[in-house]
């Protein structure tokens, strides 16, 4: 890559330009591709869940793990800067759960996922959830090798989060409008939020859910089952589950 055919000789002190053209996130992209290949070989569905802190990732996963127990065999990797509070909450629902505490790192990287996989019996799982660090900026740029990416927008956050933080919403397969039981109390307009998502992320499936009241969860579970069915069917069907 870096040497050209010997035609002349450069002397000490002379300069030369090396064409590199490698992405700065190349290491993560390569590891994400390796993760994706492993997940495909294991026919394992992997869903990366992203949102700001407090938008309801853990609550949605708790409810989902409870409701899908006996139907889908789930595992969870959960990332936070500190504490294993989320893992303790999620483990109550019987799924194997690994907490990654990142210290000061504001997102999960593909290598962290690869390192965590050894803690799971992947053959005993249909679906691996990755609850990312609560952050609407940095996790957007880090592919983890997931089959689907779900970005939450809580009713309590206001309608225009997708306009303010467009990049993460642009990467979403699904935007889940969470805490929709609080729409009236938060004086938020779901139709307007949906319109903003359609502008920023026209590819994303829009779902309105409440982990507390159960509203909209049937559609959410139907989507998750499609992701799992696609993973079971093999890589050729990847991307058809939206």
């Amino acid at each position, binding site marked *: 890559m*870096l*040497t*050209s055919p*010997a*035609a*002349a*000789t*450069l*002397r*000490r*002190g*002379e*300069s*030369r*330009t*090396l*064409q*590199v*053209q*490698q*992405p*700065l*996130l*190349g*290491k993560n992209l390569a590891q994400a591709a390796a993760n994706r290949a492993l997940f495909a070989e294991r026919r394992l569905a992997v869903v990366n869940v992203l949102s700001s802190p407090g938008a309801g990732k853990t609550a949605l996963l708790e409810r989902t793990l409870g409701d899908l127990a006996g139907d889908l065999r789930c595992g969870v990797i959960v990332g936070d800067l500190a504490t294993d509070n989320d893992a303790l909450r999620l483990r109550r629902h019987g799924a194997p759960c690994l907490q990654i505490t990142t210290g000061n790192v*504001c997102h999960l990287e593909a290598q962290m996922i690869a390192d965590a996989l050894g803690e799971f019996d992947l053959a005993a799982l249909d679906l691996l959830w990755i609850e990312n660090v609560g952050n609407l*900026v*940095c996790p*957007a*740029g880090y592919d983890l090798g997931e089959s689907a990416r779900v970005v939450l927008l809580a009713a309590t956050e206001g309608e225009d989060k*997708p*306009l*303010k933080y*467009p*990049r993460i919403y*642009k990467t979403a397969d699904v935007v889940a409008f969470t805490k929709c039981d609080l729409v009236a109390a938060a004086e938020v307009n779901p139709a307007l939020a949906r319109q903003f998502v*359609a*502008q*920023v*992320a*026209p*590819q994303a499936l829009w779902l309105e859910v409440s982990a507390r009241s159960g509203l909209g969860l049937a559609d959410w579970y139907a989507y998750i089952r499609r992701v799992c069915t696609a993973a079971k069917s093999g890589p050729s069907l990847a991307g058809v589950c939206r």
Partner: protein
Amino acid sequence: MHEAGLMQSALDMAALAAQSAGAARIRRIVLRVGPLACVDPAALRFAFEALRAGTLAEDAVLQIDEPAARCVCHACGTEFEPQLPAFVCPSCGVFAQHASAGTELELASVEIELAEEQPC
């Protein structure tokens, strides 16, 4: 984003390329950072100043090229320059998802000074 970590990656990649080519030092590092990459060139420069001491790039110039963003409307085919947050086609008003250019975030090239005579 984490411009310091990205700059560290760029310095590591540049040093690896330079060493493999027998460089005594790096004169110039050229990055390509598109406007849709969500990376701040000023923060990259700040990180470069903080990180370059003691490396092959200690005296190097950091050049950051910023290619224009491009998008082709999937509905009408119009090519336009998309801007965050929404990529709105100026001809038909459709919201597009993918930009064909503008998300670049890469080490483009490294200009090195050679340590010894060698074929080029």
